[in-house]
């Protein structure tokens, strides 16, 4: 059994995004959305506030539509557990420009910190690796994150997934707009597309 993670999630997400160039970022509902917003609101962030299970697959659709850009999905263990089949779908699609970062606090933070499957031994990186992600590893320190973060800006040999073990803390919410049409159109405008 591994030790209880100590890494603060906000520090982990800030480190993930520190070397961001023109990465397009999609965030999963709950804390990952707050964490990415806390690192700095940007037009090229697409925040989800619901549709649990969607984040990695919104990232896939975006990555397929924008093969010359790189896409980073930042989501949580609860959402990715709901979308396990989506890992198989992403692996089968083999996008070279998609990285999924699962901020894994081993709990359902939004609903009262109930233990999730990852706290009971389920290994999301192993599942992604078995599915065919070309990189699927678990990170536990800021140094480990800093070592891989620049690579999110580069094309890979296929989809990549990082599980980042973080403490089950609840930093103050940092909330982007909940107006989904506004966020969508802001993101599309960033890519040069009209509202719609």
């Amino acid at each position: 059994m591994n030790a209880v993670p100590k890494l603060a999630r906000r520090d982990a997400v800030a480190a993930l995004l520190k070397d961001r160039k023109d990465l397009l970022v999609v965030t999963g509902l709950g804390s990952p959305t707050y964490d990415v917003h806390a690192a700095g609101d940007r037009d090229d962030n697409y925040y989800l506030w619901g549709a649990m299970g969607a984040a990695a697959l919104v990232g896939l659709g975006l990555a397929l539509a924008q093969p010359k850009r790189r896409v980073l999905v930042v989501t949580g263990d609860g959402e990715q557990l709901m979308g396990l089949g989506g890992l198989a779908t992403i692996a089968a699609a083999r996008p070279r420009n998609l990285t999924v970062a699962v901020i894994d606090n081993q709990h359902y933070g939004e609903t009262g910190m109930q233990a999730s499957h990852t706290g009971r031994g389920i290994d999301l990186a192993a599942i992604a690796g078995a599915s065919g992600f070309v990189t699927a590893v678990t990170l536990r320190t800021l140094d480990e994150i800093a070592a891989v973060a620049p690579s999110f800006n580069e094309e890979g040999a296929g989809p990549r997934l990082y599980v980042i073990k973080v403490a089950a803390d609840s930093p103050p919410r940092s909330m982007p707009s909940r107006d989904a049409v506004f966020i969508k159109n802001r993101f599309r405008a960033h890519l040069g597309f009209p509202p719609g």
Partner: protein
Amino acid sequence: MAEGRSTGEYWPNEIHRVLKEAKVRQMGYVPDAGHGALIDLFQADREVVSTVLTTEEEGVAIAAGAWLGGQRSVLLMQSSGVGNCINMLSLPAIARFPLLILVTMRGEWAEFNPWQVPMSRATQPALEAIGMKVMRAETAEDLIATVQAAADFAFDGDQQVAVLIGQRLLGRKKW
């Protein structure tokens, strides 16, 4: 050859043509006999990226991502798959993402498998309850015009549209 197939034998080609004219660039699907010919056409089409799904709601999320990235898409499923999609349809509903779903109906015409019937009965009400526009076609000719109208409504009118393809049009399933 399925019963009644002769008059509509080429409808998958026509649907493919209509969707190409509508500038569809991505297609998501869960394997389905009724959509089989259309799936084959898209998979042979190098201008369209086809993505096989483990469950239908994945395709709703992929369609949203495609639109964020400037591409139109279509999602193919069977009526049973509609039930898998309901919460995910919150995403296009609240963010007003264009969405076009083609649904082959089971459980309503010469169906031998009673397990298909409950979700068949729930398909249209469930889609309407989450805010989708539902259109329906029972003949090949009507289907082509309906898909054309649905594509315009989705991509030009920013709507979420499902076209239900009647089981009568698809024909009797042979075993």
